[in-house]
């Protein structure tokens, strides 16, 4: 399988205040369609790693390739376009726009770079909401649904532009165990159905073990890289 993400000797040092080196010479790659989890204690650098992969942060040194394109040298507007097309994010908090309905929130990534919302786009958004089990609340205001439903809306939103990569940072951190189980099942289903590459940060070993690959980060270094 082709490598969709490649990190070559990526280091990250925060210059503000006390100099802190968060990542040391990380070399990692992810295959297209893989389902990986990153674990590690808080402060280990796992979120920084995910943000750098997701082009929200820049490395201090090293090279990053997404789908064969080097991203650490790209301009901000190019990165914005790349994120819109190729990467979907799911964070611990859903960050839905409360001004919009569930369906409108899912459509947002599509509308950023499309002047008109096509019928196909609405059909796709509806189908994604169907997959995450939200067909009943499609036209409800996104502030009026439960936490689990909001997080599932955020997943549907991340999938809207059919990105090759989904990056999730503690996507179930705020949810009860039943919802957590449900969401992981959804993510796995999507992984199989759309062949989307998943990288998920979690502190929950039980969850991590459901992934095909577990990467443990400790003090900014890869402590363990386990394929199942």
């Amino acid at each position, binding site marked *: 399988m082709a490598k969709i993400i490649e990190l070559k000797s990526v280091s990250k040092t925060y210059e503000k205040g006390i100099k802190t080196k968060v990542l040391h010479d990380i070399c990692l790659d992810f295959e297209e369609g893989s389902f990986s989890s990153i674990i590690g204690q808080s402060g280990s650098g796992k979120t920084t790693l995910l943000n750098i992969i997701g082009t929200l942060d820049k490395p201090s040194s090293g090279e990053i390739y997404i789908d064969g394109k080097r991203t650490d040298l790209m301009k901000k507007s190019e990165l914005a376009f790349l994120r819109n097309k190729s990467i979907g994010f799911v964070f611990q908090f859903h960050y839905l726009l409360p*001004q919009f309905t569930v369906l409108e929130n899912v459509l947002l*990534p599509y509308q950023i770079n499309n*002047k008109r919302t096509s019928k196909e786009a609405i059909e796709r958004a509806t189908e994604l909401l169907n997959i995450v089990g939200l067909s009943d609340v499609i036209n409800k205001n996104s502030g009026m649904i439960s936490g689990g439903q909001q997080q599932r809306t955020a997943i549907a939103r991340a999938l809207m532009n059919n990105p090759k990569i989904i990056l999730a940072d503690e996507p179930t951190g705020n949810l009860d165990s039943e919802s957590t189980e449900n969401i992981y099942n959804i993510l796995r289903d999507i992984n199989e159905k759309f062949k989307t590459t998943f990288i998920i940060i979690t502190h929950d070993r039980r969850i991590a073990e459901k992934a095909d690959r577990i990467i443990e980060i400790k003090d900014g270094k890869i402590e363990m890289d386990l394929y199942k």
Partner: protein
Amino acid sequence: MGFSLKIAFRFLKSNIGQTILIAFGIAIGVSVQIFIGSLIQGLQKDLVEKTVGSSAHVTILPEKNTGGISDYSSKVSEVLKVDGVKYVSTSVDKNAFLKSTNDSYPILMRGLNLNKANEIYKLDSRIIEGNKPSNDNEILIGTDLQKELECKIGDIYQIVTPEGIKKDFVISGIFDFKVAALNKLWIIANSNAVQQLFNLDGKVTSIEIQVNDVFAADSIATVFEQSNNNLVVQNWKAQNAQLLSGLTGQSISSIMIQVFVMISVVLGIASVLAISVSQKSKQIGILKAMGINNTKASLVFLFQGIMLGILGATLGIAFGLGLAWSFTKFAVTADGLPVIALYIDMNFILLSGIVAVMASSIASIIPAINSSKLDPMEVIRNG
């Protein structure tokens, strides 16, 4: 563009209370601006109209010691050819005395071309009793002089020139120019009567002109001055310098008030939008993570400013016109006329609206820059 506009609209709509509050702030600013502007403009027009509306704007006088202008009819037709000239009339003015049984009053005999002078002085509406002189023996006197003489229409009075020539005149009517000095001093007769009395056959002592644009009187006066260098040309602007500087002062203070009203509006919008950026930082952050670029992120706030400006300006124009209307309706004198006639200038109102929209857009620049600079990571990390 469309995406930013949509988000901006939703942000404003979702925070409807805040939106209405800012729009009202802008609207009050705009309405005050329109009201004060219309009031001051109306006041000035009224003042200028009262000062020079019924008098000559430009006066051509003879050279000193010549006694009068003899070839005046050719001068009049020359004057009429000049652009901007509205009315031209001639007059024969001479000082004299009016004798009563036990006193004599200094007067100014004004021999007017009564038809032409009517256009300048609106004589018909100034005569409060009686009629215009219909022959060389009739005169009009002012209401103040009439009160002093305790006379009535049909009474006969003797007028004595400084040279000692005497002649009797019949009072045919009484005028009121609303200026006591004129009402006491002027005696109006037709030109012939005065020319005969003072032996000024074929001569007038002044050519009086009204122009279309009162403020162009000085430049029109200059045109005559250059072509007639033996005559003396006066214009009302030169003779009313104090009034004019008063008007300028008034205009400046009106503009000052308007500018400061706008500044306070700008500060209001800027501070509310700045707060709105931090309120909405999570949403801007996630939009950036989803791939909205910095330009679009800043446009969200710029559009909010423009939309607030348009909403506020529209409301403000409605309020301002309403305020102006109620002012002319309720602030009235005893006879039902407005205390001050407001001058509603649509161009000025439109300009106020445009200025408000521009000011709101400028006010949203800083919030827009902040939105553009916002780092999605900060938001997500602190979320």
